[in-house]
């Protein structure tokens, strides 16, 4: 254990390290001081050093190792792996492992998305030796003992059952099923009640031996660690991973079932509405234009057209948002909202109106400059903690964007013109391409004039 020198509180507060975000007043080339660090064995990480707080955060991912790799009959495998990698490793049982994490105030957890399999580590500097040891063990020697495995399966099944009284969850389940029809993205990434029961420790071992490797590993680090220290840690934690992952290829897909409205019948006072249409990739040269367009449309809440027309003026909803999703193999622009059952028809028409207006008429100069001002100015708000920094960096890496991405981003946003937005909106926004999902009472919706194409009584990939 490394003994640290004693500081007094006053000495520490007196040490004002340069803020890690370069404010506009400082004319520097880079927005954020990111270093690319490579260990002796060739493992790379992005690092933002900050020694003003004794915390180290590490966000990492195994690219393409997520739920889309799960076989249909093994839905939830990636999810279960994320729940069991921290339930015992090496000679340490699940209870002991959890107790050590808690006693040393170490955060170590995993999270599986549709595309990627992610992990995070957060530790106080003084416990970093043990933190990195536990991380290494969890990746390379997870135990997958029977009792914790059964417990995690049961916990997931409880979660699924609880979700079945949550209309927003149900809408998302149905939308994924319809928008990504015939594609692995349509699967339930959290598993089904029956598929989870069938998963075994062998499945989990196959998961780790296939999907976790050096060649799909991406790492971002921030906090109280130097580049040299990090190099050593990278090798000690990840050095024993196999070189190459074995991943099946996942095809690209368009949004399916465009133009259709699906209903899951539920007796509730408020209908949940979710809509998806084709979107745009973060790699597309027009991506920043799309961000500006979406700010005007609905991503920012207050100040956006959807919130202005539907919530502010008419009081029809507590929340309406539009957002882009950029998965590896599908891109979408989506809406999420809810309203009293009798207002659903009006709501859909109002959203369509805003879609059409934005597609056909240029935005104003004020709308443009407000969007640019927000999108450029708000970035530091996503950098106010060590973990926020690592999450931000990781997302840039996972999208295959360069280390200079943040440096160029503001200039690109500020270069967007009203014409750019108009050109993109006219190509992208198309209400005929909407795949719409409603969760609400069919009788009430029918009688208020909502034309449903198909009613789904039982949600797919739940049981």
């Amino acid at each position, binding site marked *: 254990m490394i003994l*640290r020198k*004693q500081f007094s*509180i006053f000495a*520490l*507060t007196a040490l*004002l390290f340069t*803020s890690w*975000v370069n*404010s506009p007043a400082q004319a520097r080339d880079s927005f954020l001081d990111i270093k690319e660090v490579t260990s002796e064995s060739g493992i790379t990480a992005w690092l933002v050093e900050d020694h003003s*707080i*004794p*915390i180290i955060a590490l966000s990492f991912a195994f690219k393409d190792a997520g739920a889309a790799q799960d076989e249909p009959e093994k839905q939830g495998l990636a999810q279960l792996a*994320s*729940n069991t990698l*921290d339930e015992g490793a090496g000679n340490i049982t699940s*209870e002991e492992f*959890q107790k050590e994490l808690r*006693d*040393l*105030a170490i955060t170590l*957890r995993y999270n599986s998305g549709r595309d990627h399999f992610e992990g995070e580590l957060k530790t*106080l500097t*003084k416990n970093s030796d043990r933190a990195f040891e536990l991380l290494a063990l969890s990746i390379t020697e997870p135990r997958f003992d029977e*009792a914790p495995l059964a*417990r995690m399966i*049961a*916990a997931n099944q*409880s979660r699924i*059952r*609880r979700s*079945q*009284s949550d209309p927003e969850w149900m809408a998302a389940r149905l939308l994924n099923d319809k928008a990504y029809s015939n594609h692995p993205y349509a699967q339930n990434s959290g598993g089904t009640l029956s598929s989870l029961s069938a998963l075994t420790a062998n499945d989990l071992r196959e998961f780790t031996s296939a999907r976790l490797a050096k060649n799909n590993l991406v790492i971002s680090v921030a906090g109280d660690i130097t580049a040299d220290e990090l190099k050593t840690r990278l090798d000690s934690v990840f050095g024993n991973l196999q070189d190459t992952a074995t991943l099946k290829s996942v095809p690209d897909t368009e949004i399916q079932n465009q133009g259709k409205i699906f209903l899951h019948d539920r007796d*509730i006072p*408020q209908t949940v509405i979710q809509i998806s249409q084709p979107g745009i990739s973060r790699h597309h040269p027009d991506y920043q234009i799309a961000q500006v367009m979406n700010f005007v449309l609905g991503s*920012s809440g*207050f100040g956006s057209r959807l919130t*202005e027309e539907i*919530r*502010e*003026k*008419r*009081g029809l*909803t*507590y*929340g309406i948002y539009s957002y882009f999703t950029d998965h590896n193999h599908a891109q979408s622009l989506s809406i999420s909202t*809810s309203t*009293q059952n009798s207002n659903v028809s009006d709501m859909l028409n109002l959203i369509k109106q805003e879609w059409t207006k934005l597609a056909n008429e240029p935005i104003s100069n004020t709308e443009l*400059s407000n969007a640019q*001002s*927000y*999108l*450029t100015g*708000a970035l*530091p*708000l996503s*950098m*106010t*903690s*060590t*973990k926020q920094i690592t999450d931000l960096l990781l997302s840039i890496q996972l999208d295959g964007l360069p280390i200079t991405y943040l440096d160029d981003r503001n200039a690109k946003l500020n270069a967007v013109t009203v014409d750019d937005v108009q050109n993109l909106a006219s190509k992208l926004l198309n209400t005929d391409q909407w795949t719409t999902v409603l969760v609400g009472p069919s009788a009430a919706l029918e009688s208020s004039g909502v034309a449903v194409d198909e009613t789904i009584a039982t949600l797919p990939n739940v049981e």
Partner: protein
Amino acid sequence: MTQSFTLPLPLRILSILCLCLILTFSAQAQDTEPPKVFNAEYYTLDNGMEVVVIPNHRVPVVTHMVWYRVGAADEPAGKSGIAHFLEHLLFKGSENLEPGEFSKIVRSLGGRDNAFTAHDYTAYFQSIAVEHLETVMKMESGRMRDLAVPENEVLSERKVILEERSQRTDNDPSGRFGEYLNAALYINHPYGIPVIGWRQEMEALSHKDAYDFYNQYYGPNNAILIVSGDVTGDQVLELAKKHYGRHKPVEITKRNFPKVPQLDGAAKITHSHPSIRQSQYQQIFRVPSYRINESDALTLEVIEDILGGGATSRLYKELVVEQKIATSAGLYYDPNRWSDAQFVLYATPAPNVDMETIEKAMEDELRKFVVFGVTDEELSDAISRLQAAAIYARDSVRGPAMIIGRGMITGSSLESIETWPRDIGTVTAENIKTVAKRYFDPDNSNIRTVTGYLLPEEKPETTQDNGDAP
């Protein structure tokens, strides 16, 4: 462990800049001043407004917050939801600002803003680049005493809060379940009324109701300004004097929450609903907040950690790991309340396990606590955990403002918040036994508890073919 069961860290989590000081603290002489967690600076304006500044120079941003010491618990009878409704209306027109303009201006400057209402307080905040602090302060000060909401905005926003009630509560039976439990626990007490309000009362809230409430409670001497981020105390004080200093104090309405009537018998609420597929168990006790009894509240925080704080806690180990009668189990306690707080025990029963089994297991764990207390190791581990986990709170701009705000607005001094890690370290095993016995001894029939079962609806019995020929 599973992601969906992230348990809240004790709400008074704080940070210490140097861990060594925590470790060596107990060995230090009594007359040494304890280290402060945030090194926050404190001022009072002439008009009574309190000002707290938390410097943090890692990023050139600030979080600017105003906390009002008024919430749902202060509402007049029959006007439930007015405190929360007023919070919405503060965005709908004020000094020199059109309805909705406040948030639009914040956005256009690259900032984010929001607000929230609880039983004891209402808070408004913006996070923004430090160069715009004065702008948001001016706007926030403008709506402290100069609300200007048109009548039609009141009507349309009333629809919005009804939609909010639908989304958060009416659409999901577990939301309603929570309301019933609170109502049963806090009989004859305003905490028993939901912050969002009862629907039929919400539907009747008027412009006048909002203004009456606003004029009575929104004043500088009923508010705390907190600024966290890339600022110094002097900078903030100067701006605060300029923008908030101009307001005159209001008459403070004294809070008088009714006493708990002595009711016989525990309350049990059973709520069934056809959409429920996963039953839930909850059991609540009334316990003191920091304000009511600081020493007991500190002890309760340690108890919370040992009894119900995560995968290493007693409830989880016994119900989930050993007996396998639940898929999750734990305990939640928020000590930052003006009046009585709650100890909330919860469990998700495993399939085919009935509620009575869960209830008995909970009772056994509580009894063990009361009779045997905790081991020295459990105690010291819990204290270490609480103190060490507290460090992370410093790793945020908004976090410290929230922690200090929630504490001070519910009656804690800034000083007690700053010395929390030291204070939590003074809790003893004896304290734990005494406090457990006083507040949740299952064999003391004078301690009233509310137990809730949230259940699937019972299926009608299918007729059995008993083999008799027709």
